[in-house]
């Protein structure tokens, strides 16, 4: 049986998470490994994401000795202190001992899109370490935080039955990006109705209608969800291979790198706002070239 080099992976992740753009490329290294299957799990805070991931990982990893799976779980940073409480592990106790599993909790740090700084680099790094699947749990989201859609292959959006009005904002937002919708806490009143409401409002995207699956914390529905994730992956591979392409990922990665480089250049230059707009712009371009 293989053994994950946990200390190495862990240290690499810290290095990349803290690295400025200029160091990121060196830290990730130029690997040519096949991309991992990336699954995104998102939804409102307290909706049951961590509980669901606990059950889903156990289902997908099972007792397999070959499959390796990494979980990146993002929690929000305090806007006041910059610190964070990363509590996703509280609900992931059932999977804590699986040998093929690696879990990393991340603070959103400066990111305001439901993800965290350097997330694409962290995903690339984990791929370099050969994980077959990566599960990305994002900060609870509403209307605007749809960026997760860009970095995963299959996006699972969870909705608790007591989501109430927040579902209204999700309808024109993250729900439109969902490949699979899960109504959690299926044993609570209102779950059935929420599932029916969602099924009525979800529209087919690219010729495919996202299934609505109900789960319970006891594990009901989790095997069905896992099968739906595998089925979606197969569908994308066969019907929409372009969305999985290396080129698409590369372009998103480049955008993420250059956006951060712009932030770094703006932050490091106190005089950037002086003079005319075109002078500021030229100055920014010059800063980007030298960094």
């Amino acid at each position, binding site marked *: 049986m293989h053994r994950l080099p946990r200390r190495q992976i862990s240290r690499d992740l810290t290095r990349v998470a803290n690295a400025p753009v200029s160091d990121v490329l060196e830290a990730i290294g130029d690997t040519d490994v096949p991309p991992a299957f990336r699954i995104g799990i998102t939804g409102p805070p307290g909706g049951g994401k961590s509980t669901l991931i606990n059950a889903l990982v156990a289902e997908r990893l099972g007792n397999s000795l070959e499959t390796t799976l990494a979980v990146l779980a993002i929690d929000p940073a305090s806007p006041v202190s910059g*610190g964070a409480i990363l509590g996703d592990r509280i609900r992931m106790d059932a999977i804590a001992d699986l040998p093929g599993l690696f879990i990393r909790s991340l*603070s959103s740090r400066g990111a305001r899109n439901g993800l965290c700084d350097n997330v694409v680099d962290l995903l690339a790094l984990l791929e370099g370490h050969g994980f077959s699947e990566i599960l990305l749990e994002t900060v609870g989201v509403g209307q605007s935080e749809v960026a997760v859609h860009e970095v995963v292959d299959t996006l699972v959006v969870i909705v608790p039955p007591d989501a109430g009005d927040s579902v209204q904002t999700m309808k024109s937002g993250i729900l439109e990006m969902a490949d699979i919708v899960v109504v959690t806490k299926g044993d609570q009143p209102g779950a059935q109705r929420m599932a029916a409401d969602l099924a009525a409002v979800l529209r087919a995207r690219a010729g495919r209608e996202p299934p609505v699956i109900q789960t319970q914390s006891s594990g009901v529905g989790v095997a069905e969800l896992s099968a739906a994730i595998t089925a979606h992956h197969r569908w994308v591979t066969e019907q929409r291979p372009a969305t999985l392409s290396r080129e698409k990922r590369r372009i998103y990665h480049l955008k993420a790198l250059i956006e951060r480089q712009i932030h770094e250049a703006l932050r490091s230059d106190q005089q950037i706002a002086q003079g005319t707009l075109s002078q500021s712009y030229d100055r920014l371009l010059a800063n980007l070239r030298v960094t």
Partner: protein
Amino acid sequence: MTLEKKRILIAKPGLDGHDVGAKVIALALRDAGAEVIYTGLRRSPEQIVRIAVDEDVDMLGLSILSGSHKELARSVIAQLHAEEAGDIKVFVGGTIPDEDFDNLREAGVSGIFTSEMTIDSVIAEIERQLS
């Protein structure tokens, strides 16, 4: 913030089910800028060490109210060394009698925090050791 980007694990080993103290410390560390991972209740030393390694923490705080602090701290520290993670500082907090302090320090514990101490003094000591 002096604890900015520092990663700290707050862990509850053993069988006691009281985590108010652990949560108070976790919140105070967050307010000092740290990224705090909380394990939840009743984790084995094996699980705690694996979490500390996977999360690449700078410090591991064990919250223990059961009286088994000597055994649990020794077990965690021995396993950290076995995983080549002996550089992770280990702190112990909880109901620790004065006469056990020397024993814990000998085992490699870097700091001992009891309920008589103020939160500010605990955070200040952690900041000092991690800076």
